[in-house]
């Protein structure tokens, strides 16, 4: 977390911040998006420093109590509620000039909303942006966790529409708070049990509820349950922002996260009988794409960066193999 507004005591930091040309040089490296000009008249990363401080305080509390929903003074952002205002505020509060930002929506860096949010930060913070999971220090996401394992040097920021995992069972915020305080999660267990009775299995496929750090029932945001195992003991800090509902929560690095299940109906992730049509991966979450009027379909990786990496790896492997064959052919008499 390279905070721009942190007290500047580090001489090296100060030198870096003073050296504006140095920062500007890093804005558009090869391979990254061309960053538009920084918009004048706004503070670094849009929010004023008072607001950032308020959000950081709430985030500290969230990290201290994993999975607990902390109310915060969510601001009206220049983006509609429900479109990522919580995630944007978290990102704005923690992003620093040396961060590299990746924004994904449904696993892809190229959907309009992801492009829009990435550009918002390129314009208001002038930070380096990337589409590569490996290069990013900060990843804001809607509905997916990248396939590539995260590291301790990375922070995940999730956009959350409904932070309350119990809202379909108990719409009253005040009641839900009591249930959390008492760790009374009977309602959700009954719901899962009824699923099994009616359908033979648990009929929740995304936003599948989890228990964080053996205490708080939490919404993992509407990620597919396929991604739930990635939350558990993840080396990266995971922050969740719900702007409209004005709640923040967190899963600190290496925190146990358990998806709800029963001993005789253990948690399971979805699997496909297909491989990705583009990269051939059998380990990633696949999106179904309708390709013609006859209802023809193809299945491709939802994580566009992962899919690209797999293909690049295959190409280089083929090239190397080709070179080796050629070399072997030359050696052969």
């Amino acid at each position: 977390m390279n905070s721009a507004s942190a007290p500047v005591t580090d001489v090296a930091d100060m030198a870096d911040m003073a050296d504006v040309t140095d920062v500007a040089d890093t804005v558009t490296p090869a391979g990254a998006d061309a960053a538009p000009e920084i918009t004048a008249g706004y503070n670094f990363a849009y929010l004023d420093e008072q607001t950032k401080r308020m959000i950081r305080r709430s985030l500290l509390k969230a990290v201290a109590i994993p999975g607990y929903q902390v109310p915060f003074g969510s601001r009206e952002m220049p983006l509609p509620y429900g479109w990522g205002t919580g995630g944007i505020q978290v990102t704005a509060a923690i992003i620093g000039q040396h961060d590299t930002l990746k924004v994904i929506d449904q696993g892809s860096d190229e959907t309009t909303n992801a492009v829009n949010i990435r550009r918002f930060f390129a314009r208001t913070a002038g930070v380096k942006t990337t589409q590569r999971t490996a290069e990013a220090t900060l990843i804001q996401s809607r509905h997916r966790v990248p396939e590539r394992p995260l590291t301790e040097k990375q922070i995940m920021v999730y956009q959350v529409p409904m932070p309350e995992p119990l809202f379909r069972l108990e719409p009253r915020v005040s009641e839900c708070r009591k249930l959390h305080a008492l760790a009374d999660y009977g309602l959700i267990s009954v719901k899962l049990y009824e699923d099994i009775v009616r359908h033979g299995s648990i009929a929740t496929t995304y936003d599948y509820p989890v228990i964080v750090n053996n205490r708080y029932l939490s919404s993992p945001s509407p990620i597919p349950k396929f991604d739930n195992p990635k939350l558990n003991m993840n080396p990266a800090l995971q922050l969740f922002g719900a702007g409209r509902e004005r709640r923040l929560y967190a899963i600190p690095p290496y925190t146990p996260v358990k998806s709800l299940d029963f001993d005789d109906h253990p948690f399971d992730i979805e699997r496909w009988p297909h491989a990705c049509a583009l990269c051939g991966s059998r380990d990633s979450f696949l999106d179904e794409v309708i390709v013609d009027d006859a209802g023809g379909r193809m299945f491709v990786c939802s994580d566009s960066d992962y899919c690209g990496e797999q293909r690049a790896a295959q190409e280089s492997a083929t090239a190397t193999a080709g070179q080796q064959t050629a070399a072997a052919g030359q050696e052969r008499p």
Partner: protein
Amino acid sequence: MYVAVKGGERAIEQSWRMLDSARRGDPALPELTVQQIRQQMRLAVARVMTEGSVYDEELAALAIKQAAGDLVEAIFLVRAYRTTLPRLGYTLPIDTEQMRIQRRISSTFKDVPGGQILGPTYDYTQRLLDFSLLAAGDSPQAAPAGPPPEPEAMPRVVALLDKEGLIEQERASANPSEPGDLSREPLRIPADRSTRLQNLARGDEGFLLALGYATQRGYGNAHPFAGEIRLGHVVVEMELEELGFAVELGEIEITECQMINQFSGNSITPPVFTQGYGLAFGHAERKTMAMALVDRALRAEELGETVESPAQDHEFVLYHSDNVEASGFVQHLKLPHYVDFQSELNLVRRLRENHPALRPEQSDPLSGVQTGMQADPPHNAREENAA
């Protein structure tokens, strides 16, 4: 073909340009000016200021122009701008008794001290389309507004009932606490009345109108009378610490509504009239009347009445009144949901594989569907349970 699902920067920029040209309309016609909107669409300006939570006619008019007349979008624009402004402090409470009145009516007394003043109202226009407005140029009947109203003491109607103790009075408390600010702090339930009123003032006029209407139709047990509705200008003053006295910042136009409601009383409190309160920037009678009805309905709990209708339910009203929140969340369904939908597709396919109505012996798909529709789900559940 996979690329088709991706948007990208150029598409967004193109969409901005199309929006601009759609807003401008036929370039052969002169462009609307912000001043024209401010002067000639004053009711739209008032609504944007009230629900946008900032009193600035010019900004509101600009937002209406930019939003091509979509008032909820204009309110959003104003809110997004407002959030970047520093909050300098609080003004003194405005004194509506000292209002420079344009319109003032009471439906509870035939005549009241200060008189009934009809003022500008659509109430008695008979709603005939005025085709003379179709013609360009100034309308001929732009009559002079008459002499400016003489300043005269206008005590509030509800205060007249004070002597008999027939109606509860709202008095400034001796040690008022600092008011909350919903634009800075999250709403917490239970919310006190000043927070609730702030929420309702920012709330969507249509939502409040429907809820207020519902209380009149039996969903909320209301017996309201329009005690008083006032429209006019009030002075805004602020105390500056350096000076130690209040300084006049200017005047704002507001509409205020005090609704009188019956309260049947209980073993402790004798029967008495109670109040519902509405206040909005500019001329906004529908909004303030609806707000007053909902405010009174929300007081059910504190007055010991049964809470049985949506309009009396704090969480239901306060969490759903904001049109910027509601509009954003409803319309976020436009965003891609490929991943969630994919998960649901897989699930529904799997559940259908195992469904008794779709077993192979019923090969005719139509009969399968019919059986499925007639099947009683609890009955099926019991069967599976027994199995």
